[in-house]
């Protein structure tokens, strides 16, 4: 069977890595599969993907990797093969307008395209039940959930040499964005420094350092007098990321909106205990492998971190639960499920 994928931009990140993994899994299952994108980031120019203009051959099924409005969505709609939409969630507008007016256009466009795709698609595949709800609200009548495809062994990277640990180290990994609420992590961290451990350090790892939200965050950190205690790293290499996980005592999530949250899996894999605010897809991805809080006021998050860091047995329990939980996302389980879902759409 020929299964081609379309993605707006092929770039390093959760959706890009998933797209390539889907291609590899489809090929390993004996299918013919290529990836087409309107843009391919130069660092991934050698990954064997093609530009949209080269998508001339017919497929039995096409898979559209959906995360934002794009001309690629229109190109997919213009084709007559059966469509499967693999939905990675569109950030709600309330987290974008005010911070990223330009991105708001892409999200609004994406919502409109998703509704249109619902009328044409054979199947909607969501990477979480939370995202599946989004598909159903857009009008998809047939949906299923298959987690993001990840090769867990890709997390096995030799850590880059890093600075010596400075006190208890908090970590969050994710693009600096209002829906990921790094400002709430900073608030909780400020409470932790004040009431529990004055030597603690926070590493916020992820791109987006040039955006308005990041500038606000930096001013906030400065006003709190935490310039020396909080590091905003920007994008990092795999080796640097591994070093941050190796140095972390706790992974803290205060996100208000996550469609899946891959860094939770990275954290489990690297045996870093997790404290997370229970919002959107976070509880589903985390399962029992972290301390989930119903509230995220700074003092509660700080107290939860203090408990996890200070209680060796609890820490061990969370780390072991994480190590088990992450295996649920092993490619040997998710890959066949994805192939089955996609190929089933061809014959309907």
């Amino acid at each position, binding site marked *: 069977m020929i299964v081609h994928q379309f993605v707006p931009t092929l770039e390093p990140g959760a959706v890009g890595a998933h797209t390539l993994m889907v291609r590899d899994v489809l090929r390993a299952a004996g299918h013919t599969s290529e990836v087409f994108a309107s843009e391919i980031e130069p660092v991934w120019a050698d990954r064997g993907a093609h530009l949209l203009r080269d998508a001339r051959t017919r497929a039995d099924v096409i898979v559209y990797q959906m995360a934002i409005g794009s001309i690629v969505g229109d190109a997919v709609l213009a084709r007559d093969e059966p469509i499967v939409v693999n939905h990675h969630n569109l950030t709600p507008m309330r987290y974008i307008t005010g*911070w990223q007016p330009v991105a708001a256009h892409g999200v609004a466009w994406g919502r409109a395209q998703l509704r249109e795709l619902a009328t044409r698609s054979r199947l909607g595949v969501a990477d979480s039940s939370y995202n599946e709800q989004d598909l159903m609200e857009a009008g998809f009548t047939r949906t299923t959930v298959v987690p993001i495809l990840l090769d867990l062994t890709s997390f096995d990277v030799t850590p880059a040499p890093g600075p010596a640990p400075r006190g208890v180290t908090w970590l969050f990994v994710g693009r600096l964005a209002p829906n990921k609420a790094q*400002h709430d992590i900073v608030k909780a961290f400020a409470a932790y420094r004040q009431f529990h451990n004055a030597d603690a350090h926070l590493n916020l790892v992820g791109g987006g350092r040039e955006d308005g939200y990041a500038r606000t965050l930096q001013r906030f950190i400065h006003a709190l007098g935490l310039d020396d205690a909080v590091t905003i790293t920007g994008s990092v290499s795999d080796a640097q990321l591994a070093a941050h996980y190796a140095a972390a005592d706790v992974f803290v999530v205060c996100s208000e909106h996550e469609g899946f949250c891959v860094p939770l899996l990275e954290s489990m894999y690297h045996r870093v205990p997790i404290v997370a605010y229970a919002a959107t897809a976070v509880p589903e991805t985390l399962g029992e492998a*972290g301390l989930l809080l*119903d509230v995220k006021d700074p*003092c509660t998050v700080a107290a939860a971190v203090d408990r996890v860091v200070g*209680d060796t*047995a609890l820490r061990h329990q969370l780390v072991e639960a994480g190590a088990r939980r992450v295996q649920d996302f092993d490619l040997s389980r998710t890959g066949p499920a994805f192939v089955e879902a996609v190929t089933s759409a061809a014959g309907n």
Partner: protein
Amino acid sequence: MTDEYVDIHKLAAEIEAEVRARRAAGEYPPGFERELDRLFDRFAPPEVSNDFDAALERAEDLVIVDPVIPVASNSPVLGVVKRVVSKLLGWYHVWLAQQISALSTAINTALRLLGGRVVELEHITGDVARARGVGARTPARRDDSAWNDIVVAALRGVSGRVAVLECGEGALLEALTGAGLDAYGVEPRAIVADVALARGLEVRIDDGAAHLHAVGAAALGGLVLRGLVERAPLGELLLLIDAASAKLAPGGRLVVCSLRREAWGDNETAAEADLVAGRPLHPDTWNAVLPEQGFVDVQVHAAGAGAYVVAALRADE
């Protein structure tokens, strides 16, 4: 150190309770968390902070569109291409930019005029919004002892969380938790909420209606409306009842605690009553309103001479 398997759900609840107890014991300075919120809001853009004047100023800053086509490039060839395109299309860009700027300026001017008219309207009507804001911030004590027993009896056996909007200094909330209910309070007046927090109660400092709208659908087993039902104008009250219907699970209980009209505005509610647009409903009005919004078994109880309690059941779907 923990020696055995820990139920992490219980642990999370324990930690939340521990933080409440530490707040009550004064270990966290009052206002510490609010100060963090305020500090972040200071740096957030006006579009996020909901300040009309600041948002308008920001729009005015952006109103003029730059007609100059950027030609800088890391690639010499691309730089040449951009300059050629700029030469060829510069006039068109200027023409477009002028029209967009003119439209933006006109919209901005209209917005400023509209803002001015709203301010004028507020002045003419006695600046209802401002007075209401002051009214909503004015501590107004209510004697919970008048309705505590009725409310506890009405909610007995409820499963799931019970929200008390607004909880005031927490006497009713304390009675509910004392009766074994999983109750928490919401109180917009920080100075009043601090009294409830000091009693070791779980209290969110938030606007009651805003909190209810943020709660998940069918997430509550019980809901007590207190204080804000007397203050809210009719339109807001109806929206509040809509929200209550959506946020209560089927079979959940709604309880309304209210002063009677004749008692409203006396003594400790005087300033509040003078400043806000709402007034308490007659008890019988709830009998007319609640069944329209999916409530059944509406019962009105007198709570002394000056107050009443309405209890109703959220109907099954």
